[in-house]
């Protein structure tokens, strides 16, 4: 017997491709633009959202029958806020420099449209196991885009990956690698508009591979 039924597998794989939160639903763009200048920050953000959305979806799903529908948004906010504070405190304790880089955007996970969207659209109407899979799937779909964007922005913008100089030494006077050939980092890559353009290119590639995704 397979670990997951076919229907459950789809919950995880769909957000990766044809129902990606960023490239198809265009949710969670703000953080994708703001913190993807470095690959490390992208990965940490992806993991944080994975935790918040995975756990949050389960919690909401467990409470779904006792939440009065009139105040459900408040309840959802309390759940997200609690989880985000946990993430924030953990980051501050164990990765202070990184939490500086991510600054306000960890806190802003609360307002990340993907999270409230999944609570509303899925966790309120499904059991905890399926809600967990859905949360993991969507957070991973979000994270993979963040990591792709972060990869290209850090590589082309700073010439490094996770802080390691992969393209050579750019310091004048001791140039090595590509820099010795006259290459220079692309400062535009470090600015937010370029993140938007990179996401746009991903959307473009995805839609030209799968024509069904093109709206009229």
């Amino acid at each position: 017997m397979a670990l997951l039924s076919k229907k459950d597998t789809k919950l995880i794989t769909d957000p990766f491709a044809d129902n990606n939160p960023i490239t198809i639903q265009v949710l969670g763009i703000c953080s994708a633009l703001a913190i993807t200048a470095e690959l490390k920050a992208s990965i940490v953000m992806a993991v944080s959202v994975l935790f918040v959305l995975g756990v949050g979806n389960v919690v909401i799903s467990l409470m779904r029958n006792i939440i009065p529908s009139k105040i459900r948004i408040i309840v959802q906010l309390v759940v997200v806020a609690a989880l985000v504070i946990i993430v924030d405190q953990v980051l501050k304790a164990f990765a202070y420099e990184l939490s500086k880089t991510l600054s306000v955007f960890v806190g802003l996970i609360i307002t990340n449209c993907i999270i409230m969207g999944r609570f509303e659209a899925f966790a309120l109407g499904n059991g905890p196991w399926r809600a967990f899979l859905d949360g993991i799937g969507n957070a991973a779909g979000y994270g993979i885009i963040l990591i792709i964007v972060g990869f290209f922005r850090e590589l082309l913008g700073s010439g490094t990956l996770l802080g390691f100089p992969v393209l050579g030494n750019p310091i004048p006077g001791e140039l090595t690698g590509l820099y010795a050939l006259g290459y220079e980092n692309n400062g535009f890559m470090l600015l937010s508009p370029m993140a938007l353009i990179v996401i746009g290119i991903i959307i473009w590639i995805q839609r030209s591979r799968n024509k069904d995704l093109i709206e009229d």
Partner: protein
Amino acid sequence: MSLKSNLHSLKEKYRGTKMAPAFNALHTFLYAPNETTQSGSHIRVVDDLKRTMNTVILALVPCLIFGMFNAGYQHHLALGDIGRADGFFSAIFWSWDNLVIGLWKVLPLVIVSYGVGLAIEFLFAVIKGHEVEEGYLVTGMLVPLIVPIDTPLWMLAVAVAFGVVIGKEVFGGTGMNILNPALTIRAFLFFAYPTWMSGDKVWVHGAVARDKAIAAGQNVDAISGETVLGSLAQNHEPAYSVADMFFGMIPGSVGETSTMLILLGALFLIFTKIGSWRIIVSTVLGALTMGLIFNLVVSQGWITESSKFFGLMSTTWWHHLLIGGFAFGAVYMATDPVTGSQTNIGKWYYGFFIGFISILIRVFNPAYPEGVMLAILLMNVFAPTIDHYVVQGNVKKRMKRLKVKTA
């Protein structure tokens, strides 16, 4: 068989294949196409898109040639090989030595710009199966004229690829783009490689290389190639006379320095009805207005010499037209028929704000001395909005007239 009929028969052979658009582009570049419209109403004209583009290129040629001489002149002048040229027809300026440097530095820029840009246009035409559009003919000529002389060629190639794909092709190609492609290319260079696009080293050929030699410990003098805008932004008196600025014997991007030749180009474009005189005039008016406002601020004593804006604010109002890339932008960039306003009233607003905002950015943000680039890109975005309100205003006016008549 003549070359022409050879080409016509070759076209028949390529018809329907993937390479047809690429072949057709070359074919109609050389000859008028042999197809005629068979049905429907149609008119015979010669000013098709290709002719329009070629006219603009003709208007740019004087700037290009002057830019080549100027590149050599600034280089030799900075090295101390030659003295200052006096007057536009000075033999010191129009020398063979200057031209050689100019050809050596400017032609590669032109070749890379056209090579990369047209390659992408052909690629997209073949993939998408439409005809190659002529839009890049002008862009490819504009680009080398608005970059600093020492721009590394690979940077230019990257920027051109970015500008053509992101600035134009994603929107659907020539005629569909929101932003002026040449300015998109320049803006990309400006934000991606700021050290090559601003400062006092990039405008004169050899200054960057000389700087590196000094850094490596060689005993040579540094070359300063500060532009007029650059020195004004630092509250220095520029080292050039008004005549120098008007004739264009100043450091700057390759083809943008000579206001006189740009003026001739403008007259040519207006005479051939390719460029909109409304946009050119209103852009100049906008810049003069802003210049006068700043002069007023200075003469009222609201701002003193201690201010970091004093140098540019106290610049005589009409000098703004002569320095920097303003004139070039107003004549060749703002008048782009695709990205500018389409309505006649809209053109006045569009142009006025370009001029107004150019000088505003130029004065208040010395980090971006070339305000005209950002101003035109900004107004490109607003041009459809301006047109919308002009059209709506017209509709409203006529509705009122209709009501009066029927009442």
